[in-house]
């Protein structure tokens, strides 16, 4: 178990990191960035795998199974649409 205050510090530092990392994003990238951050919280897949992994009753298995499907959809769908959007960005000077 990660101790209470250590968890709190992780929370605070991660929050500042998230805030700082995108603070200078140009408007042009807002939609891809929203989509990209949407992909990153697809990491919830790992959590659903562990939750389903120690599910003991059929009800827990059912909830876990649905959760894994949803999480996989979040991760894969988020990646595919972000990648498709970013693929299109190029300058008039040619090249990517």
């Amino acid at each position: 178990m990660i101790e209470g205050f250590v968890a709190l510090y992780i929370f605070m530092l991660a929050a500042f990191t998230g805030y700082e990392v995108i603070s200078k994003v140009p408007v042009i990238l807002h939609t891809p960035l929203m989509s990209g951050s949407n992909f990153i919280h697809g990491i919830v897949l790992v959590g659903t795998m562990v939750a389903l992994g120690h599910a003991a009753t059929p009800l827990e298995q059912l909830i876990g199974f649905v959760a894994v499907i949803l999480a996989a959809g979040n991760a894969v769908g988020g990646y595919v649409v972000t990648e498709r959007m970013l693929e299109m960005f190029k300058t008039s000077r040619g090249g990517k």
Partner: protein
Amino acid sequence: MGAVMTVINIAYFIAAILFIVGLKQMSSPTTARRGILWAGVGMVLATVVTFAHPELEGAVNYLLIVLGIAIGGGLAWWSGRKVAMTDMPQMIALYNGMGGGAAAGIGAIYLLQADPETASDVVLAIAVVGSLIGSVAFSGSMVAFAKLQGLMDKTVNFPAQQWVNLGVFVVTVLLGLSLALSGGDVSGPVLLLFFVLALAFGIMMTLPIGGADMPVVISLYNALTGLAVGFKGFVLDNPALMIAGVVVGAAGTLLTQLMAKAMNRKLSNVLFKQFGGGAGGAAEEVTGSLKPIEAPDAGIMMAFANKVIIVPGYGMAVAQAQHKIWELTQLLIQRDVAVKFAIHPVAGRMPGHMNVLLAEAGVPYDIIYDLDEINNEFKTADVAVVIGANDVVNPIARTDPDSPIYGMPILNADEAHNVIVIKRGRGAGFSGIENHLFYADNTRMLYGDGQKAASELIAAIKELG
């Protein structure tokens, strides 16, 4: 801590670094593509090592995991590949909602398994909060998806709606409180009712919100899902979830604020006040008349201009006119006309929605300008072409304190020498407000579907040789 767990933790640590680096790279156009690739590598790494997690047990559970990933991932891959660029906003809402639902699912399993012997009040409380946020993000995103996909009528309003919503929210929180203070002895019916009400609240909260505010709402739910995932990381003692979730929660909150600010709307107003209508909705006086123009004349006007600024809006997305607009732009550039695109922060249904569509058509991003960069240039432009945009160029936002959009920064298209408005019909904009720009002396209306109008303009300019 066993050797396997050490390897898993190292992999999670690397994944967390890759997510943050990826997000950082995604905030610049030159490195954005690399950013999503790095984040993708992190995701695959974290997922693969989790199969070795010591808490995973039972062949059936392993089978269900593989099957679930195959089904969810396969469907999402297929839908994400085939969705049109114009439908991106609702797909992001959909995938985001799925993440929220997954976080709520983790919470449900944790609460079902909670053991009165070992459960800690703090962890139970975090699990409840994460479940509440995840459920709201799930059902709210689904409503946003249904609305943007056209599966659901625009808004649902009934008397005392906010009080009913508040009531549902309070009851949900009280139920959550009783779960958190149960000491791990969780009652099934209470748990069920808690989730049903949390889901209902997400639906009810999103129903009255109009389409114009959807970008802010989707962004907010994106941040909420991130936060819910972060909380689940604390519950599961999983630092990868904690860091990725909280980083996204914070980044999403900032993005939501930027968008709300660009619309000059307070977040609380987006969520709790209906747009337009009601007070101040009295029909305003509009002086002047709508003056139509035919495509050949408009084409000549543009072809002999020195500088043309194009203002795209949601109408361009609906008409799928971005490819024709780029063709038109190229023709004009060949004739030595300086062409620039002016993008309002909330044009379309998402921030940057227009940029994505223009990028899809092949428009280079260095002739696309933000509101701040280009607003002083309208004075020197010969022609401003407004295609499918309305409220974002309505000068009433500067002049009429009674207007619902008063104070919203707008593109000063009215300052151009000539304004051509390409528009399907004579109706008012999304907010239902008359646009005084359309009645101005220097404005001409080119009626028709955006794509058709652009084709006609192209033909007209080509005739000039």
